[in-house]
């Protein structure tokens, strides 16, 4: 294996990792605030993908531009889901919360199937397979754009959670709902806010991945699993952790595919995941806050 092959894999791994990171960030916020493991996360992402798809095919809006529409819409979607369903199980047993999100995921993916059939939808833009070439290394144009968008979002969210009162209130809600209420924090609103943000992130990730991937009702489950790995690796509740986790997973997948083999790369990913958990159960960035 030559050096350029390795370099290529590192670069594309990092870029793909950027999109993973966004999925992870969404999940980490939802977990961080509501202590709910959201098994429907990938399905929310799926909704974002369909949204992007139809905005593109029906209205001709470019996916990267439509993020501006997708994000608020997905926020509302998530907020609604929180208000109608999740809110009712916040004080329930953890297994019930898991199950509720599994149920909601089933509802989402199967409604999508009824509405849009189980056909694969492919979003083709003029740049779907274009790339920049840099000394023999190719850099996918759409991936690069999504990577940059991810970075911007990460920085923005980090600032929001660490530096603003609302952000801190979200964290406080995560740690003790009752105490947060006694501080005058509207915890219901905080939950809605964080589920909304989490969904918006998942939806955005869907939008960003849509031009290079494909869309079908069950697309979510694989990404849900990925999001779990990323958030736990990074430390649940930590935005920086999720970003790091996403990029690491992207890198590990990509590099182990060329150095070990593509069939074992997922085992490598999970093994690293377990290793990190064993050495530092709270994840890479655990404890260090959001």
């Amino acid at each position, binding site marked *: 294996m030559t050096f350029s092959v390795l370099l290529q894999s590192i670069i594309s791994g990092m870029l793909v990792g950027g999109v993973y990171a966004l999925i992870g960030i969404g999940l980490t916020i939802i*977990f961080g605030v509501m*202590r709910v*493991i959201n*098994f429907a996360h990938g399905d929310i992402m799926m909704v974002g993908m369909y949204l992007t798809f139809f905005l593109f095919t029906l209205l001709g809006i470019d996916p990267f531009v439509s993020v501006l529409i997708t994000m608020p819409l997905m926020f509302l979607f998530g907020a609604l889901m929180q208000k109608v*369903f999740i809110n*009712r*199980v916040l*004080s*329930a*047993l*953890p*297994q*019930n919360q*898991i*199950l*509720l999100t*599994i*149920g*909601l*995921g*089933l*509802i989402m993916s*199967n*409604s999508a*199937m*009824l509405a849009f059939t189980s056909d694969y939808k492919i979003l083709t833009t003029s740049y779907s397979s274009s790339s920049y070439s840099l000394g023999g290394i190719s850099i996918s144009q759409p991936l690069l754009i999504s990577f940059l968008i991810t970075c911007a979002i990460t920085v923005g969210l980090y600032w929001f959670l660490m530096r603003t009162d609302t952000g801190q209130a979200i964290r406080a809600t995560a740690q003790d709902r009752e105490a947060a209420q006694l501080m005058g924090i509207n915890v219901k609103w905080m939950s809605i806010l964080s589920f909304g943000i989490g969904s918006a992130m998942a939806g955005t990730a869907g939008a960003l991945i849509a031009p290079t991937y494909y869309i079908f009702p069950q697309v979510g*489950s694989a990404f849900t*699993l990925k999001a*779990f*790995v990323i958030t*736990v690796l990074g430390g*649940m509740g930590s935005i920086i952790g999720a970003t790091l986790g996403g990029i690491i997973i992207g890198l590990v997948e990509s590099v182990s595919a060329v150095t070990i083999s593509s*069939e*074992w790369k*997922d*085992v490598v990913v*999970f*093994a690293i*995941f*377990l290793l990190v*958990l*064993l050495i530092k*159960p709270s994840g890479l960035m655990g404890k260090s806050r959001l």
Partner: protein
Amino acid sequence: MKSIHPLTSIRGASAVQIMFGIVIIAALFAFPQFVESPYALHMMILFFLSTLMGSSWNIIGGYTGQYSVGHAAYFGTGAYTTMILLTTKEIPPWQGMWIGMFAAVIVALIVGSICFRLRGPYFVLASIAVAEIVRITALNLTDLTKGAEGILVTDIPPFKIGELLITDFASKVPYYYIALVLALAIILVTWLVQHSKLGYYFQAIREDQDAAHSLGINLTIWKNTPLVISAVFTSLAGSFYAIFIKFIDPTTVLPLDLSVQIVLISIIGGIGTIWGPVVGSLVLVPLSEALRSNVIAQWLINSGMVDAESGTGVFLKEHLAHAHVLIYGILVVVVILFMPEGVMGYVKKLAAKKKGGEA
């Protein structure tokens, strides 16, 4: 909000209850003598299998509070060991399944040594990760497992003790009895757990690990014990499934989806109770079958309520079939929202209310 209800715990069942139990068990044993429909037997077998899987999970998930979402790993280990031994070494399944059980115990101990250092949601996710590793490994160790191709057997060797032929597995009946016995066994084990030191220790760990630790409970031993019990029976379920279906591959016996299904059974029924998984299976198995085969639409049409050719009729026939997982999802959500303690918990609450009303 936690509520106090004086728990008048029923230790030691009443004579009526015992009688009732005996009658039911006798009826179950007699069932194949009266009902020959293989379809009915098949459904009963799926029901026993579901009970077996659900109750196995219940020991670690329900009683000990360690929500493993990776039980497919044990199911798959049992199934694969049995099938590999059968196809490569010609070891018959009723011997292979014990070896499968042993393999599952080893997997469980490995899982335990990794995952039990973690708590709460971290444990859940770690258990998923381990199961995924097992699945991908099975997929890639093609020499041993035949990878994605799966293992298909045509004939199960007849079960003989000495010269005496017990069964040749030609019909569903032997499978029915095996599944029934396994299901009864796990219920018995659950009963024994609940009424022994194990039950107390498991529940103490579920409630507060640190407190349990300070009361002389060795966490390593007492978390691995339920896991091993659970893995043993789950692997038996896997072995049974393998010889029952005669075909296995990683997507049928090792997927995350299966792990989730296993968890569903006892949560729907009510976790941490003996009968929860049974009730869960009683609800889920017929329900998913009814939805799958679209009997609802069929019934509506056959009963003449809906005209088969009318718009609604066509819609029901064509689309309800597509919608059954959707309905399933809706039911899950409804149960969680309105029966947070599962069906068993709900029934108990109703009973308590009624009692309160009478008093």
